[in-house]
């Protein structure tokens, strides 16, 4: 029986010719990753179990991105523990303030991910790297500890949902709208334990950044991973970022899928996920036109890339943030920060009245750098709008693209960028 792309990568990592959905396997890992929140728990487990060396220092990445620059004394202690461990263990890919970026933007940028890799990360959005043809998935800290010690992890071989893409996105519509639209269709547990495998003629028209954004939120549909086929764009991206030699796997033509979903990209509307679940997706024809916004956040592992900065600037250029709205812009890595600065985007943001932050997860998880008060509303380019995600349990988060976030910043209410078109800047 044919295998899905994900199943093929798994098979190659446990020395099997073929695998069936539901089988349990112990597979070899190409990279294991954790951050300043999950690494301390993993390090404690690693040490408690009496392990003394990581299996391969070149295949471990530790990224201090969540509560950094250290938000308080406890966070500082956690960072110090990870820093010390990284040094003692000869961890090759350790990123600290000044060199750090948000893990899921940083790893592909630094060329640490290539097609055909099997990667686990102690962070749920590790599923992002599927955009580059890797099988990557989020795990917990004990999995991370075992991964660091033995270079292996257990998996139940997943079934897959096939998402066939046709058509081409309309102006202002981006990868974020595609994934919010898809989660709206299938729900936050629509892909539970399953892979989301994207395919079809529409793939070509999506940039690698769009694909990274789409795979990033596979977990928001409950998915184990999201994955795109490897094409010329992928190979060019890998080459540009100095990634290892890609291993290209394709789904068999007779691969069995649990379900097939067809999406015509040209019909995907600008989409916003209303509180308090990413599945509460709505198009603008279904959005009240007077939803006042207190804060806008543009950043995160979902939409903190250079193209997201450019899209936000495109809307904010020559315009002002509304009087009662505050805007926080967070380039996801040092490289993006520098590129955005050189392109003059910071000037655009500063002229408009935005705050620009050093790379951090910060407000995305309600950590620091932009926490919401009771009753406040935020339009955010992040990926989760659960109760209390960005602050007070009675605050509200609306998930959207950088275009929508920037337009909402200008108008002080949830708004589509199309509303600003033709208006004098």
């Amino acid at each position, binding site marked *: 029986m044919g295998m899905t792309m994900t199943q093929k990568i798994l098979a190659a990592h446990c020395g099997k010719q073929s695998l069936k959905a539901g089988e349990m396997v112990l597979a070899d890992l190409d990279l294991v990753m954790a951050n300043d929140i999950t690494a301390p728990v993993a390090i404690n487990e690693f040490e*408690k179990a009496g392990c003394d060396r990581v299996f391969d220092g070149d295949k471990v990445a530790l990224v201090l991105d969540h509560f950094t620059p250290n938000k308080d004394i*406890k966070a500082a202690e956690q960072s110090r523990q990870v820093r010390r461990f990284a040094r003692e263990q000869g961890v090759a890919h350790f990123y600290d303030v000044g060199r750090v970026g948000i893990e899921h933007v940083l790893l592909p940028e630094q060329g640490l991910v290539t097609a055909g890799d099997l990667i686990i990360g102690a962070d749920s959005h590790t599923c992002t790297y599927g955009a580059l043809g890797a099988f990557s998935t989020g795990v*917990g800290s004990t999995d991370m500890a075992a991964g660091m010690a033995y270079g292996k992890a257990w998996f139940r071989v997943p079934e897959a949902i096939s998402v066939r893409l046709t058509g081409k996105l309309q102006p202002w519509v981006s990868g974020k709208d595609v994934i919010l639209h898809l989660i709206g269709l299938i729900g936050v547990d629509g892909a539970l334990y399953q892979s989301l495998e994207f395919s079809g003629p529409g793939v070509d028209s999506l940039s690698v950044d769009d694909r990274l954004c789409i795979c990033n939120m596979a977990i928001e549909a409950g998915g184990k991973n999201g994955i795109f086929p490897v094409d010329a764009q992928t190979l060019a991206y890998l080459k540009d970022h100095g990634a290892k030699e890609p291993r290209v796997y394709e789904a068999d033509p007779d691969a069995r899928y649990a379900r097939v979903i067809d999406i015509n990209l040209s019909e995907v509307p600008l989409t916003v996920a209303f509180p308090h679940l990413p599945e509460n997706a709505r198009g603008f024809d279904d959005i009240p036109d007077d939803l006042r916004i207190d804060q806008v956040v543009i950043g995160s592992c979902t939409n903190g890339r250079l193209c997201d900065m450019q899209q936000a600037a495109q809307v904010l250029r020559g315009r002002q943030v509304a009087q009662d709205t505050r805007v926080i812009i967070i380039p996801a890595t040092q490289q993006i920060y520098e590129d955005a600065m050189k392109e003059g985007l910071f000037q655009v943001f500063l002229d408009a009245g935005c705050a620009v932050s050093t790379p951090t997860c910060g407000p995305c998880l309600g950590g620091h750098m932009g926490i919401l008060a009771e009753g406040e509303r935020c339009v955010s380019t992040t990926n989760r709008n659960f109760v*209390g995600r960005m602050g007070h349990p009675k605050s509200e988060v609306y998930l959207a693209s950088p275009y929508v976030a920037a337009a909402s910043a200008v108008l002080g209410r949830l708004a589509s960028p199309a509303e600003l078109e033709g208006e004098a800047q």
Partner: protein
Amino acid sequence: MKLQGKAHVYGNHVDTDVIIPARYLNTADPKELARHCMEDIDAEFVKRVQPGDIIAAGDNFGCGSSREHAPLAIKHAGVSCVVARSFARIFYRNAINIGLPIVVSDIPVAAGDELAVDLSAGVIENLTQHEKRTFAPFPAFLQGIVAAGGLMQAMRTMEGGRA
């Protein structure tokens, strides 16, 4: 392994941000995490919960982040087992890896009902409502992890104590 306790009932999609809010993730100390367990969905939970109690929920329990702090907080709050119609996948593997028993079942439960779970026999009973269900025990591979006392111990055996 047999477990018995009073049920605390929640709905669908109970996410890791309400199980243990991110603002408390600046520590990995299970006792401190336990003090804030379920805080944003049920501020009274930590005051009510008794050792051995059981959490019962709907679909997709534990969705959201990969934080192992979530099952750790639940376990160290004294909860003996979580019963849900389905679990989010990272929560599922974390619970197994740290030894928090979880059961997939759609048995009817109201708040305060007395539940009894026999993990090895695969039977769950609601003693208050006189309902009984069976559930599929874990696959052998996962039973091995649980029997070894957690993933790190199981790996040590499988990999011959290399690390």
